[in-house]
């Protein structure tokens, strides 16, 4: 059986950032979160379907998320939303990520001290 393509090495810390960003806008349950990440990143970033829960539970345990049970269409789901502590964490992570991506972009495009990476002919 073929293995599912995720982004194992590049993804450290990214699911946490994306989840906090999503839940900062709306409360969601696990399945919704995975679908939202896929659709909003154009499927560039794929979070393992089941792997999202350890991240959610970890964030909840750290006080970054809160949860509540809600019955929808006869099924009980656990909805998560960001707490004030989670908002701070999101701001920190977003700032770190922005700095990192700017630095990498600078490297790739040449920046002030280098040459841009060119596609081989």
């Amino acid at each position: 059986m073929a293995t599912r393509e995720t982004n194992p090495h590049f993804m450290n810390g990214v699911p946490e950032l994306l989840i906090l960003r999503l839940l900062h806008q709306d409360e969601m349950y696990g399945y919704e979160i995975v679908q939202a990440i896929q659709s909003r990143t154009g499927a560039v970033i794929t979070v393992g379907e089941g792997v999202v829960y350890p991240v959610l539970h970890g964030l909840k345990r750290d006080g970054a998320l809160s949860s509540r049970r809600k019955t929808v269409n006869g099924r009980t789901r656990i909805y998560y939303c960001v707490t004030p502590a989670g908002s701070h964490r999101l701001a920190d992570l977003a700032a770190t990520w922005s700095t990192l991506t700017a630095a990498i972009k600078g490297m790739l495009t040449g920046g002030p001290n280098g040459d841009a990476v060119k596609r081989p002919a």
Partner: protein
Amino acid sequence: MAMLLNDLRERLLRAGVAPASVRLYLAELADHLADLTEDERQAGRGRAEADAAALFRLGEADGLAKAMIERRQFQAWSARAPWAIFGLSPLVLLAGAYLGAGLILWSGWKMFLSGADTPFVPIHGPAVVYFGLGKLAYFGAPLLIGWAIGLIAARQRSNAAWPMVGLIPVALIAGAVQVHAVRSPPAGAAYRVWMDVPLAGMAGALLHSVEIFLITATPYVIWRLARARLPDRPAA
């Protein structure tokens, strides 16, 4: 689906993930799988095909287990520090229970039997209830602690050696310890209650210890034997 979740449960528990975290994870995974299956059915797949596709999307047991196991925050204390949970905590709890029982005996003696030279005399009325609490703590604590050790070990699929680390000392202490109550002369002076392990009569104490060990260990041993008979579920 049931096979995947059972396999995952066993892997997580044996790896030391706390039972409460495992339960929540599996419940959410089951819900997620139901959503995925529904999604596949709506995409026009047949039932069997939708089930297979949903399982594939959910991921393999290896990856699902690894995601939980590598986060130390989900580890149970019985896996992080088994020596503390199975070795130290039972002794501390037993000491606490004996201290409580001793205090009840001492205070009850002063309250209900102030003229008596010993509290070990026939009692009536509220004294029966009061001293009964002390007896419950004294005789019940080793059994409750022993059963709790077995329950924790079973829930966590701990190595069989760990519960023995707690059960044996608890049984030895509970079987050997004796309570003494003496009123120092002159009459009306201090009421003294203490516990010790007398060297005389060790054979009887050992027999009592074996009885306590058997009573406390038997449910755990039965559980292990029952699990060992289940296919694909060897005891830890």
